[in-house]
């Protein structure tokens, strides 16, 4: 009776692998196969990035060899004679993104400070979620809304107002079309606000309480507390958040394509239509099949890829550093 019990226990135990630890090659095989599969999946991310860079470089080589640096500074874009220069696109991309940052950064920092420092605790999560929802709206919907609601509003109200009051500055001169660089920038500003505010919010919330209490104990007002102890410690992370926002703005395609006007020109007025790298790719890429035109478009994609890679790398390192520094200051895990 007792013997059978023990033997049945033994058989169960060996079935579960308890008594055969290390002795069962099948078991070790399972572990190493799984570890290998998991390793492959992680490695696939590295391969994917490398392959992406490689493919874009390979496909744009004809254009790089033919035009060299001229590609970046020439305004010509002539598919018939196969002469390509990207300057108007680069200009439109950079100006629209910088304008968007100009509008979005103060707003985003206000939101981040409010939601991480000032707002009553019960209000923080719901308000934060509302702001985050802006990021969930598809960019094509932003574009649709921009075409039919925002651009007419800007063209009829905001742009004439700016032209009347600030018309002395050439940037605000020119006919108010509605559709144009300015409309694209406004939509971009709305689209990158959740990115910038969410990351800065997190960085500010991570600033150690000791630092804030020190300021409060010295009699600082709530705003002085933020200015003296929160902002300086969170600064690298905030810069990182802004850079990430810039990266998003540079690569945003649909909303910009629908609003920027798609006119290849360099115009001082921000009300004028313009063009961007991502938009020209979206508009022309499906129609070309091979040859220098495609190489030129892919070279622009490559430029965009390198800029966003660089910006993202920088931003991540800054945010990471702020995180670890805040943790160090905090002194507890």
């Amino acid at each position, binding site marked *: 009776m007792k013997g059978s019990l023990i033997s049945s226990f033994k058989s169960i135990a060996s079935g579960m*692998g308890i*008594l055969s630890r290390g002795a069962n090659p099948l078991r070790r095989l*399972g*572990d190493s196969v*799984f570890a290998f599969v*998991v*390793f492959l*999946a*992680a490695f*696939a*991310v590295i391969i*994917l*990035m490398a*392959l*992406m860079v490689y493919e*874009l470089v*390979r*496909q744009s080589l004809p254009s790089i060899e033919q035009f060299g640096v001229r590609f970046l500074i020439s305004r010509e874009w002539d598919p018939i004679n196969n002469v390509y220069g990207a300057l108007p696109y680069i200009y439109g991309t950079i100006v629209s993104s910088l304008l968007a940052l100009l509008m979005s950064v*103060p707003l985003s920092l*206000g939101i981040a400070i*409010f*939601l991480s420092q*000032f707002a009553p605790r019960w209000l923080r999560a719901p308000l934060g*979620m*509302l702001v985050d*929802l*802006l990021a*969930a709206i*598809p960019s*094509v*919907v932003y*574009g*649709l*809304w921009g075409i*039919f609601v925002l651009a007419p509003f800007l063209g009829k109200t905001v742009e004439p107002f700016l032209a009347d009051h600030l018309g002395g500055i050439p940037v605000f001169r020119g006919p108010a079309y509605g559709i144009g660089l300015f409309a694209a920038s406004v939509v971009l500003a*709305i689209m990158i606000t*959740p990115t910038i505010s969410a990351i800065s919010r997190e960085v500010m919330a991570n600033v150690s*309480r000791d630092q804030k209490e020190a300021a*409060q*104990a*010295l*009699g600082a*007002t*709530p705003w002085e507390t933020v200015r003296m102890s929160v902002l300086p410690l969170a600064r690298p992370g905030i810069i990182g958040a802004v850079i990430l926002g810039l*990266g998003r703005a540079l*690569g945003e*395609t*649909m909303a910009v394509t*629908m609003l920027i006007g798609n006119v290849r020109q360099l115009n001082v007025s921000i009300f004028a239509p313009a063009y961007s790298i*991502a938009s020209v*790719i979206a508009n022309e*890429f*499906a129609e070309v099949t091979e040859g220098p035109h495609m190489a030129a478009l*892919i070279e622009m994609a490559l430029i*965009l*890829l390198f800029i*966003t890679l660089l910006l*993202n790398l920088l*931003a*991540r390192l800054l945010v990471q550093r702020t995180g670890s520094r805040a943790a160090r200051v905090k002194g507890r895990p």
Partner: protein
Amino acid sequence: MNEEQAINGRLQMQKEEDYEAAELAPPAARPSAPTHESMGEEATGKASRDRKLYSGSAARRRSRNIRSRLAYSLCALSTVIATVPLLLILFYVIYQGAGALNLSFLTDLPKPVGESGGGMGNAIVGSLILIGIAAVIGVPFGVLAGTQLAEYRSPRLSWVVRLLSDILSGVPSIIVGIFVYTLLVLTFKQFSAIAGGVALGILMLPTVARTTEEMMRMVPDSLREASLALGIPRWRTITSVVIKTAAGGIMTGVMLATARIAGETAPLLFTALNSRTWPTGLDKPIASLPVQIYTYAISPFDAWHKQAWAGSLVLVLIVLFLSIGSKLYFGRRMKRAT
């Protein structure tokens, strides 16, 4: 009773709240925050800048408080301003879209210009197919890569993979589209649903990988140890204990990633292209909701604009359902876990 005491009271309350949040008792030895007056008397030996700050006149104190309130209001105002576009967009999408939305919009094929009626049935089905293909590629790879990051501590590889997947999530989606175009469309000389799905799958990958990693890290080590102590091999421990425990969290990550790709248009423009018929095969061009909205939005026809609004309403409903749903679900889980 003056403003100053009110401010001090507020600071004190704020501090108590902070302690509550961290479940810490305020250290008894810590002296309570001194008032402005006492600070002023004690700070006589401090630098002149300090003295200016603490022993200022009543007028100066008032101006500091006013400045603080002003900053508070400006920050609150920016939060309000940011929610305005959201509400406006939702309002217009519902207002314009609801009028054009009906059953035949959801089930019919698009009609040529001039004919009334028609819908985006094929685009909705196409979007579901594309999301399905994307999930088949993005989810397993993402979960496995996340498993590597969380369970196998190989610091150098993990650092690189983590950084790259963060960077990958910042790569503009149109570039992923071009990459898949050169990789698949040029090779097979065919725009296809597969190509579109692969592009979306690549976009899903980083989100799924990073949430999987985070969720698996939240699984307590005691569970792993208990399982290993029972003699269960490591891979079985990971698949049936760790992943199973983290499954809810991983699910929210997948939902968030799906919400992100459901509205993606740019990478589909030259991979899946578009189509005006029902999907016939995965190796053929396929319609999708976002591309159809784009095509209609930039067309010059009023009837098509209405359809674009209706399509946007459907798309926004899907995306908001996925992202709000996952956040609420996750929030509830977090509360239960703590």
